[in-house]
Structures are given as structure tokens and as C-alpha cells.
């Protein structure tokens, strides 16, 4: 059951660790997701793991929950070494995961959802009386107000999350992992959640809380582990560190040095954006009045923790979502233009998610390379596709960007992620666009490919292209950008100089700690 285990007082003075990770490493083809990760979570505490997107938090939690096996290192739960081959092994060891995206069946009731998969049975039928009693006991112990006969479709987000927590407890978890639990909640729901979590640990459970919201981390956790670039870099407590200090730990005190550039930024404004507003859910704008311009040969970096409006800004620039405001490319006003007209006016896009927005996985590479360029007169013959020219152009992309593939007829799904990305980047750059909107152009690709993509972007920039570069990779952001704009909560909250910016400065702007917007 959920509430066994020694009831240590919080902040627990006992030395016993609920979870211990030593030297965990995990590689994916071309990427090191985790290396030398060490973590010690005391029993009966709320332990926060903070870090930027891509710092390796999710990989680590998947390892701990048995969703993937680490290449190196050991996992100890309650003092015993464990090898998790699947989440059910982790559940057996008392570990439960509350996912960021709820996994509930909408048309079932709360009770049915909770028992789904481990229904108490009597004579081959579900014993609802037993289930009801057990679930009621758990909700009562949480002090949670939950109508277990309501349909899940009628519940709000906060209640759904509570259902997920009860579900995990119902399966006997004593160690709960919560992946960005507050990302979807409104402030009052956050308070409710934290009350629930405190109650849980008071009853002896252990909570591992993944977040990048520093206020929440400092407010609710007993211990904090900071991750950066795939490894654990610091352990601290809310008593030892303030927000600025934590932000600096997250971003790192050593910033990469910007690469010197040999060409000058031109005078011609190639992209001008004025008062761009993108409506968001619940009446709050996702982008709240963005104004900036990028000149020829200039790279404007866009920093920010994911979910602060970067995606909405970029897709609005491409005309993929409704927005108000002005977008001008090379003095052509595109504010009311369709996506295709924007492409034709010289706006190219490297999308955030290559699988969702960039590729037709079942189509051959040459058709993928043609996507978005099928209006190009060199690749068509009147109303017909010039197959030979399209394939030749694809071979050019393959050669120039080092896409590793047998040939241009290979379907896109057969390529590794890095090579798919190189094709997407090549497709955008080969048109010599006026303006490139590049979202995480080197995410998930290996170092060699990354350098090649950077070189190509610099070359295009030197030839006069203007770039809006969205990146979570500080090396990329500082190494390429001429100016760094920080987005926080839908606004461009700061314009920083990559030559002089400090980690603390960047971190505080990205996490909204900085008092006043400079821009």
C-alpha cells in the first residue's frame, strides 16, 4: 500500500535513501543524453530536479521508471540494487510516475480509471466495492477532494492530475516521480498540488519533482539537484540558494565564448516584426507584442525556457497561426499573406519538430526535399514536377549537407534523426532564403553534423541572410547570435549582447527572475 515505510519527520534527518543513482549514463545514436549522473533522494522528502530543456532530466526519469535501460551505472531503491527492464519492474519496486501528459480514458469514471489495469476481481468480475473502499482510503489520506464517480471528461486539469496521483498510489507506489507537474496548472491548482505533495511526504512517501520553475522548486522542495548538459552538476537546498543562484547553476557559470565573425552586419532590414500578438488559450496571449528587426547578415538568437511563446512566435511568422501585428520581409508586407506566399517571399523555416512539421516519413527523400519548394520554377515543368531536376537537387543537398543515405529514393524513416535534420536544414538553406527562422537547427544531432550545420548557417548569413535562431543550446546561441533576445511569458523581456552576457544574467531573464525588462 501507499503509506508504508518509516514516518520520518520532515525535513527528514534519517540517512536512508529512497533512491540512489550512481554514475548513470545513457547514449542514443549520436547523442549522449545522460552521463555520470549521481542522485540521492532521501526518504520522505520532496526532491526537485531542475535544469533547462535538454539537460537530461526526462532521460534520467525514464531510466528510473524503467522505460529505458541505462548503459552504465547502478540504481538502488531502498538500499537494494535494481535493474528495471520495464515500468512494471519499477512499479514492483514501488516507483510511480505521473506523466506530464495525462494518460486517462476520458469516457470512464475516475474510479474506473484508477483501477484500470489492476482491477480487484472476485469470481471473475470486478469487485467495485473493494475498489471503491481502497480508492476512498487513498483520497481520504491525501485530503483530496475527488468525486470518484465523475466521468474524467468532466474534470479540470488539476483534478485529472490528482486522479493520476491516486492511480499511482493505488498501484502501491511509495516513490512518486512528477514530470513538470505544474506546467499545465493554474496558480490555485499549483497550491493544491503542493498541499497534496506535502501531505504525501508527511505520510512517508517520497516525491521526485521535475521542474524548471525556480519559485516552485524553492517553495516546495527539501532538496534540489541541478542538471546541466546531461549530468548532475550541483546539489543544494532551498536554504542554501536563492533564485539567482539557482538560475546560474542551471545555465552554468562558464558561458561559451562567442565566435568572432569576419563579416559585418548589413544595413538592410530583411525581417521586421512589429507588435506581433498571438492569442493563446484562456485569453492570455501566447506572444504579447513582439517587436524586433533583423538586418542582412545578422543572427538574432531567441533564448528562453520552452513554452514561453517561441513556438507561437515562429509559427505566426510563417503564417501558420492567427496573429495580429506586422511582418515585413525585404520591405514586402506579409502580415496578411498565406504561408505559401511567405515562403515565396523568401521566408524559410527549420521547424521545431522535424517529424511532425518537417517530414513525410514514408515518402522518399527527394519528395521530402521538394516539400515547400514545389513552386520553384527550376524543379517543375509547368504544372508537372520535374522529377529529374528534383532528384538532382536532392542529391545536391545530400552532398552539401552530408546527409548519410544510400540515395535520394530512400524513404525518410530509414534515416537516423541527425540525417533527417540535415535534410530539413538543407532544404531550407538551399533556396537561399532572405530570412531563415531556425528552431533548434541542431537538436538531437551529433557534434560533427552540428558543426556542418553551423558552418552552412554562417555561410548563408555571410551571404546576407537574416536569421532568427531559436535554441536551447547555449553554445549554439552564443556562438552564432549577434544579439540574444530572451522570451519570457510571451514577451521579449531582454535584448542581450552575447559578448558580455553573464550566465546569471541570462538565467535570471530566462526564468523571469529579473525585475524589469530591459528592452
Amino acid at each position, binding site marked *: 500500500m501507499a503509506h508504508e515505510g518509516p514516518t520520518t519527520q520532515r525535513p527528514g534527518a534519517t540517512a536512508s535513501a529512497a533512491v540512489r543513482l550512481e554514475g548513470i549514463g545513457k547514449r542514443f*545514436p*549520436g547523442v549522449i543524453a545522460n552521463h555520470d549522473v549521481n542522485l540521492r533522494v532521501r526518504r520522505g522528502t520532496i526532491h526537485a530536479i531542475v535544469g533547462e530543456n535538454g539537460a537530461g532530466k526526462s532521460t534520467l526519469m525514464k531510466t528510473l521508471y524503467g522505460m529505458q535501460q541505462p548503459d552504465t551505472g547502478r540504481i538502488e531503491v531502498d538500499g537494494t540494487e535494481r535493474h528495471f527492464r520495464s515500468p512494471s519492474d519499477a512499479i514492483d519496486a514501488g516507483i510511480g510516475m505521473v506523466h506530464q501528459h495525462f494518460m486517462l480514458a476520458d469516457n470512464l469514471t475516475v474510479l474506473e480509471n484508477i483501477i484500470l489495469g489492476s482491477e480487484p476481481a472476485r469470481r471473475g468480475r470486478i469487485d467495485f466495492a473493494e475498489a471503491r473502499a481502497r480508492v476512498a482510503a487513498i483520497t481520504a489520506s491525501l485530503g483530496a477532494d475527488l468525486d470518484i464517480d465523475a466521468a474524467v471528461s468532466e474534470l479540470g486539469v488539476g483534478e485529472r492530475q490528482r486522479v493520476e496521483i491516486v492511480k499511482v498510489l493505488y498501484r502501491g507506489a511509495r516513490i512518486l516521480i512528477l514530470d513538470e507537474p505544474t506546467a499545465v496548472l493554474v496558480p490555485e491548482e499549483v497550491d493544491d498540488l503542493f498541499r497534496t505533495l506535502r501531505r504525501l511526504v508527511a505520510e512517508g512517501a517520497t516525491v521526485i519533482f521535475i521542474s524548471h520553475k525556480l519559485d516552485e522548486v524553492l517553495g516546495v522542495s527539501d532538496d534540489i539537484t541541478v542538471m546541466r548538459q546531461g549530468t548532475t552538476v550541483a546539489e543544494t537546498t532551498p536554504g542554501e540558494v536563492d533564485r539567482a543562484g539557482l538560475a546560474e547553476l542551471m545555465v552554468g557559470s562558464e558561458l561559451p565564448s562567442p565566435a568572432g565573425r569576419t563579416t559585418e552586419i548589413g544595413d538592410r532590414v530583411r525581417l521586421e516584426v512589429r507588435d506581433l500578438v498571438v492569442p493563446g488559450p484562456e485569453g492570455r496571449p501566447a506572444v504579447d507584442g513582439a517587436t524586433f528587426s533583423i538586418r542582412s547578415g545578422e543572427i538574432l538568437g531567441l533564448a528562453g525556457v520552452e513554452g514561453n511563446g517561441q513556438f507561437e512566435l515562429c509559427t505566426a511568422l*510563417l503564417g*501558420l497561426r492567427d496573429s495580429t501585428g506586422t511582418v515585413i520581409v525585404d520591405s514586402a508586407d506579409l502580415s496578411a499573406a*498565406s*504561408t*505559401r*506566399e*511567405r*515562403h*515565396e517571399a523568401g521566408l524559410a*523555416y527549420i*521547424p521545431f519538430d522535424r517529424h*511532425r*512539421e*518537417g*517530414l*513525410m*516519413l*514514408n*515518402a522518399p527523400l527527394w*519528395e521530402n526535399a*521538394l*516539400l*515547400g519548394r*514545389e*513552386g520553384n520554377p527550376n524543379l*517543375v515543368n509547368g*504544372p*508537372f*514536377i520535374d*522529377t529529374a531536376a528534383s*532528384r538532382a537537387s536532392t*542529391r545536391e543537398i*545530400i*552532398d552539401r549537407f*552530408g*546527409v*548519410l*543515405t*544510400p*540515395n*535520394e*529514393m*530512400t*524513404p525518410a*524513416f*530509414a*534515416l*537516423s534523426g*541527425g540525417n533527417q535534420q540535415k535534410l530539413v536544414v538543407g532544404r531550407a538553406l538551399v533556396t537561399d532564403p532572405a530570412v531563415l527562422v531556425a528552431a533548434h537547427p541542431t537538436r538531437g544531432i*551529433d*557534434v*560533427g*553534423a552540428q558543426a*556542418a550545420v553551423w558552418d552552412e548557417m554562417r555561410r548563408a548569413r555571410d551571404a546576407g541572410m537574416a536569421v532568427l535562431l531559436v535554441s536551447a543550446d547555449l553554445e549554439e546561441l552564443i556562438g552564432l547570435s549577434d544579439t540574444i533576445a530572451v522570451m519570457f511569458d510571451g514577451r521579449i523581456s531582454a535584448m542581450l549582447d552575447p559578448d558580455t552576457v553573464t550566465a546569471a544574467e541570462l538565467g535570471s531573464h530566462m526564468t523571469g527572475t529579473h525585475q524589469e525588462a530591459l528592452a
Partner: protein
Amino acid sequence: MTALDSPPTAPDTSPSRNPLDRILTPSRATALRTSGITVASSLVAILIALTISAILLAATGKNPIDAYTTIIETGASGNKLLEMLKRATPLIFSATAVAIGFKMNIFNIGVEGQYLFAALIAAEVGSRLDLPPIVHVAAIIAVAMLAGAAWASIAAVLKVGKNVHEVISTIMLNYIALSVIQWLFENFFRDDSDGGLNVKTTLLPDSGRMPDLVSGRLNAMFLVALATVIAFWVVVYRSRFGFRLRASGFNATAAATAGIDARRMTVTALLLSGAVAGLVAMPSVLGEAFAYGPNATPIQFGFAGIAVALLGRNHPAGIVVAAMLFGFLDSTSAELQLAQVPNSIVKVIQAVIVLTVVIVNEATIRRLNIRTAERARAELATGGAS
């Protein structure tokens, strides 16, 4: 990552186990291998289907060998081959109509309603026109396509404007079409001058009739069907519009990101599908009955077209072959009945074939995808891939 500077594009860098690779460029060999495996898997599926049907026959106390012998013997005669082509003609139209929708993941189940509506309108308009021979036939065909597209446009407007799923709307519109047709026919278009029980619209004048290729056996609409399939191939696989259509089908989000207007593609695809659907009953209207009539105009071809499109995997060549197979099986039903075999077994065989082909194809495609990915990796191993 050592291969960055030398991407392996030259055809002779990879050691090939397959002799095809040495004759053909690797890309063409890939395509040929893929289609070869597809054809082979379809043949295997048909064999499985015939086995299952044989078991069904045996289970009902009929001798499956007798039944199959009858089918083969009947099919071997030249007359039956013509009948097969004749029966395949409307199936080619309806399967092509369905396949156009499928190419962008639109499931047009409304071909039935679209073609019956088109048949009525085209027959009625055709009987009132006074035009020179070839122009008259062309005009009737154009009217049929417009009428089919018009009926399909209702589903298109509902989908784009109100987000009504086309499966729901086209099924419902089939029923509505039947009522509208009956109302129009009974109240306005019915011609009783014949005096018989077999009421029809006014007969088309000679100038509005499509000649037979083989008198009384095969109408020239068969050639129109082949031309339609070729046009389908050219438009879908070779034109820019077709590329945009298929891109929307492959990945709607990526297509939209690339500037392809999904709403416009949806409307165009449904209109085109409806236009081709409008041709389904033309072999009857232009070549046989020379009119629309509740008993003269063939029904159910819209649904058979879905099966044929599935069987032919929405590919032009596949559609022609599948339509021929269905036409052939249909053509044998009379002889089967004479041989004391229930001719409904033909429908059973057709249904079992579609099911097995769909299942076997799905399995084959998955295996093929895994193999393709493995081959790509293996071919790169010489270049030192990650």
C-alpha cells in the same frame, strides 16, 4: 562520423547481394524491389483467399475444385474476357474516385450517391441537348462529372466549414441522394412514353450515344476508363497538384508548414473524387440503357469501388488489375449457378480477397519498412555511419 566529407552516393560503393543492383541504378532497384514485393504479397494474399473460400465451399457441402474449375473454364473463353473488361469498366471509375480521396486520407464513401445523382442529371440533360455526335457525348460526360462533383461538394463544404468528418457526411449523403433522385425522377424526369414497366428518362438521341468497341459486348467507355486511370496517374504522381495532394496525405502538418493549404486541398480532392465518381454509370447511360432508370442503372458500384481501391492499393495499375479480377469473378457467376454452385460464393471470394490482401499488405509493408531501414544502414556501413 567519418563520412561527412564523402557521402556514399556513388552506386558502386556498396557490395550488392542482389543482381538487380548491378544492372540498375540503386534507386531504381529499390523502387523495383518494393513494387515486386508488393505484387508478390498480393498474389500470396489471393492464394490465401482462394484457400479460405475453398474451405468455406467445402463447409457448405460444395466441391471447391468443381467450383474453381468452372470459374477457370468460363474465364478461358474469349467472350468472358470481353465481359470481364465490361464489368471492370465502372469499377475502374469508382475505385479511381475512391483512390483520389485516399491519397490525402479522405475516405469518400459517397461515390454511390455521387454517381447515381450524376447518372440521372447527365441522362436528363443529355436527352434535351441537340449537339453533333462526338460533342454530344463529351457534353454528357462533362455534365456527369460536374454533377458528381456538385454532390461531393456538399461533403467538402461540411468538412471544411463545419469540420464534419467526410465518412459521416458521405454515408448520409448517399441516403439523401437516393431520395433526391427518386423525387426528381418521379416528378420531373420520368418518361412514360415507352409505356412499359421499365421506366426511364427520355432516351438519348443517337448523337449522344457512345459506340461499342465490340458490338454488344464492350463499350468504348472502357477506353475512357483507361484514360481516366492514366490521367489519375499523371495528376497524382507527376503533377505539382498531385504532389501537394499526396503531401497532405503523408503528413498534413508538414504539408501545411510547407505552405500547402489543407482546406483547399480537401475541397479539390473531394470535388475531383466526385467528378470521377460521376463517370461510374456512364457505360450504362451512354452505351447500354441510353437513359437513367431505377431498374436500368446499375447500383452498388460505389461500395465495390472501395474494395477495388483497397485491393489495388490506390495505385493506378493496381486499380486496373483489381477491377479486372473483380470483373472476372463477376462474369463467372452465371455459369457457377448452372453448375449448382451458389453464385454468392463469388461475392464471398471477393470479400475474402480484399480482407486478406489488406491484412497481408499491412504486414508486408511493416516488414518492408524494417528491411528498408536495415538495408539503408547496411549500405552506409561501408561509408562509416553512426
